[in-house]
């Protein structure tokens, strides 16, 4: 694996809010084409980690390199350029609720690729809607969609910019098992078709197993175990075991 290109590299990342330390020295290398799953309990700092990667939060210390650029040192303009290559799927999906699905999808594209004609944009919108299987919803409002459909549109909205890296924040949280499986398949499909590298945050082990090439457990502000699904969970480590048991017994 080591000879593959590193797209995200994090060294000794620290982040705290007020007095509470959330991240305490995270190290991570994400390779091109890889799905990296971050598992962790609620409040362990998973969302904070990817927000730092996307430049929404500034690290207290440490180096966050994305596609060779140190995120917290970029100018507004360079950061925007970098963000075009990052797809960020929010925990809440964060669809623009005053806009229709079409407007949601074309919003960033219209503003960032001004040379494109309306026809080209429409083609791009159709293509991503096709990819997530929701073509018929194009003129509806986000409030008309179900939870799973909203997640799909959230994914489609980032796919339209053809990102190199996808950051998924709990893509399957709050969905029924069948829809979860569909989303997992979608994540894998996106990785295959668009050849993206992804960080997938979840506390759902089925999702981790289905999508992750490598898995890490975030505990006490650090990755406690990193490896394939089998490596992480074939262990006597209490915390990993209890996480595993909890997921499959409940």
């Amino acid at each position: 694996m080591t000879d593959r290109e590193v797209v995200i590299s994090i060294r000794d990342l620290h982040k705290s809010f007020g007095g509470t330390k959330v991240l305490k020295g995270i190290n991570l290398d994400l390779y091109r084409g890889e799905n990296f799953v971050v598992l962790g309990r609620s409040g362990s700092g998973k969302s904070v980690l990817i927000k730092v990667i996307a430049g929404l939060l500034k690290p207290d210390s440490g180096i966050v390199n994305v596609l060779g650029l140190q995120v917290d040192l970029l100018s507004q303009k360079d950061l925007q350029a970098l963000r075009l290559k990052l797809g960020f799927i929010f925990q809440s999906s964060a669809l623009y609720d005053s806009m229709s699905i079409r407007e949601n999808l074309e919003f960033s594209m219209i503003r960032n690729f001004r040379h494109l004609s309306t026809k080209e944009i429409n083609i791009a919108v159709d293509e991503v809607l096709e990819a997530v299987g929701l073509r018929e919803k194009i003129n509806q409002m986000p409030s008309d969609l179900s939870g799973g459909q909203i997640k799909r549109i959230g994914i489609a909205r980032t796919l339209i910019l053809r990102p190199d890296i996808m950051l998924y924040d709990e893509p399957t949280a709050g969905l029924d098992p069948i829809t979860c499986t569909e989303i997992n398949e979608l994540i894998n499909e996106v990785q295959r078709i668009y050849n993206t590298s992804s960080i997938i945050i979840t506390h759902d082990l089925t999702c981790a197993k289905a999508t992750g090439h490598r898995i890490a457990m975030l505990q006490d502000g650090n990755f406690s175990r990193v490896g394939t699904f089998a490596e992480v969970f074939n262990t006597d480590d209490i915390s990993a075991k209890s996480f595993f048991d909890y997921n499959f017994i409940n």
Partner: protein
Amino acid sequence: MNIRESAIRLINRIYCTLKKYRSGDDLFTKKIDAFFLEVVDVHKFVTRFFKELFTKPFEFKEIINQCYQVGFKSVPLITLTGFVIGIVFTKQSRPPLVEFGAASWLPSLIGIAFVRALGPLVTALIAAGKVGSNIGAELGSMKVTEQIDAMDVSAVNPYKFLVVTRVTATTIMIPVLTLYCTLVGLLGSYLNVHLNEMTSITAYFESAFSSVSFLDVYSAVFKSIVYGFTIGIVGAYRGFNATNGTQGVGKAANRAVVFSMFLIFAEEITIVQITNWLATL
């Protein structure tokens, strides 16, 4: 030493003095800190507006849309309020004037009152309640549901798309609404005058505008531009900085109204003083 430096030095001195009086628990100091941090924040927010207003790309379409939202949708409320105030104000002002045998001055009294004070102030206060709270709540809910962050990570500048457009729209539309409110108010007043004194509409308006000077008109336009900017920027600031979920959205809307009304009164007093001073030159 320029004004900026001395202002910073003055603020710094006040800050240090206040800090000396800190009580045993640090709550008081924290509040002072929070206040000054907020002052810095507001300053940044406002200067950013002027910086981004003149840099490409421009969101013309969204500005037009916001002008429609701010302007057109406030028309019914402004019409009603302006008209009623016109009638009531005229009705209430008549008896004292009649007592002095000066009933014929009624139109010019109303004209001055509406152009100088009532038109701009009534419009601004209504818009602060309707438009300001709307902007605060809308941006506040976008903030707490991470829609603003979502714009940011999709490489669209949310300040430009959300704040610049709305503040521009209020700055343009409040003066227009003020003009409209003044006219509607005078029309209401005319109705009352006509029913009582049988004055014709031309005579009424001639008399109403006879005592209004150009300075009055300039000052009214200037005032309403300032009010429009205030309403937009306060609402946007409150919304953009909303926290704590749905509760924060309500708070943002509420604070937007309270704070912009407060500022509008403060600005009114200042501008009136300046106008009076200019009139004596």
